[in-house]
């Protein structure tokens, strides 16, 4: 499939989002709300859950499946409170030595007046810094759209996985087309040029694993994902925190090294 077709698949109606994924992968999900600073952002869902016998902290960006849910979730575009809630839950996970799983599906952080007033840039920046040194394992899974800084704010992780048709990009294909090619109709070309597919990202070293979508059978897809997650969390939880953190730093540090 070409990049633009995958982008359509990643955005398709009916594709499972973070909540659907949580209920497939985990048991005993108990949602925790609020950033303790300003409010509750329903675009970000997070809480406690079990994966097999292991307690984990799970945090996802949820777009909403129905029209009502989409409005409630702001179409999966988080405000600063969403990122701050995520950081609060990650710090809590660190305190209780639980690994963290993040599920990313967002076209990007919200661009609005309130979001700017309350420090969208600052909220994302804090997450990037803190996640780099969070001393418990973090695995980030991009389920659909991984939109720019709003996705990265939950994806500074030991391992970053993408579902087969998910995409991860610095800017939307439409945005790139209108800015770089001065022609919004060239989104298809922009999607190709930006190298946003799972295979491209794996080649670039940006992601670590592609999760098969099993030809669209998401029950099967999530069963495979659950097994892989259980296995990798066990392996990462066995590492001393210093080794984990050194590897996480090195993973991002090598991205965009000079060519010679």
């Amino acid at each position: 499939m070409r990049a633009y077709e995958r982008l359509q698949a990643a955005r398709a109606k009916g594709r499972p989002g973070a909540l659907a994924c949580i209920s497939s992968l985990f048991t005993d999900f108990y949602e925790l709300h609020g950033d303790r600073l300003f409010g509750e952002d329903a675009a970000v869902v997070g809480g406690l859950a079990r994966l097999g016998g292991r307690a984990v902290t799970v945090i996802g960006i949820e777009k909403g499946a129905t029209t009502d849910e989409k409005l409630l979730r702001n179409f999966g575009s988080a405000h600063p409170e969403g990122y701050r809630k995520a950081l609060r839950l990650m710090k809590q996970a660190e305190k209780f030595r639980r690994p963290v799983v993040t599920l990313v599906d967002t076209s990007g952080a919200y661009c609005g007046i309130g979001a700017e007033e309350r420090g969208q840039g600052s909220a994302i920046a804090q997450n990037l810094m803190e996640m780099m040194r969070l001393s418990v394992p973090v695995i980030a899974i991009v389920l659909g759209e991984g939109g720019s800084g709003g996705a990265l704010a939950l994806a500074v992780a030991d391992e970053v996985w993408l579902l087969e048709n998910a995409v991860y990009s610095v800017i939307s294909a439409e945005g790139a087309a209108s800015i770089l090619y001065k022609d919004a109709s060239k989104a298809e070309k922009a999607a190709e040029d930006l190298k946003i597919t799972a295979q491209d990202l794996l080649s670039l070293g940006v992601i670590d694993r592609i999760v098969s979508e099993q030809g669209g059978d998401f029950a099967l897809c999530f069963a495979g994902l659950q097994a892989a997650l259980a296995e990798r969390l066990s392996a990462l939880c066995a590492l001393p925190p210093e080794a984990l953190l050194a590897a996480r730093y090195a993973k991002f540090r090598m991205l965009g090294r000079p060519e010679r």
Partner: protein
Amino acid sequence: MMLKRSLFKRPKIALENGGEDFSSFLQECPGCGKEITQGELFENLHVCPHCGRHFRLSARQRLAILADEGSFIELDAELGESDPLSFPGYAEKLQNARRASGEGEAVLTGTAMVLGQKTALFLMEGGFMMGSMGSLVGEKLARLFEHATEERLPVVGFTISGGARMQEGILSLMQMAKVSGAVKLHSESGLLYLAVLTDPTTGGVTASFAMEGDITLAEPGALIAFAGPRVIEQTTHKKLPEGFQRAEFLLKNGFIDAICERKAQRETIAALLAYHEGAREGENDHASL
């Protein structure tokens, strides 16, 4: 401390333009509409003497204003070129940016003395593809913070950026994480990072190292945003409040420590560095990656 006239280094680049003297050329200030001669503008550090509007500076002009003469030692001046996606037209754009700005990339890094105090320093170059964050910008910044951590130096950084370098796609985005990691290790070592945000600082730079300082200053009137005003207007279809996303707005909302006029920056930065002199001798027991 009184500012001495000699501290105002005349930014040489503009004056040496073809050997001609432009000092009597008149320019209309977009802030107040009054006419200013080029000479007045240089004398006043590119700040309008009538309304105080701060005009944009190149990285080298800032360096001349900030650092003690002859103290700057540049790091990683030449890291080659980066076009990780072989993006159509990018190689040519890079060539043009290099020619236009006289810099190898959109940030200048090194060490310097500020009124006798040693610091690591980065100055973003707005004339190089709008100070956008390419892989080499990220690499230079990560190396600077790592160097400062090793040498137990504070970091003073001036930001100006349109955000991501779209032609580098996802690798541009990854620089935000890479640099934030290096900032965090520097921070864990007990060292000071002082960020000075200048007009405009937006996008991925705002959502990473611009907002990660221990102390964050901004120039008067600087636009500081995650999403720029045009994007916000298009998304919300609302009229933006007066002064939205300007430095004064961020100060009021609690996201910067202070606004610092250009003419006070050198002494202010030196004074802030002096409060943290002890940090340089502190034990380093975290950042041992």
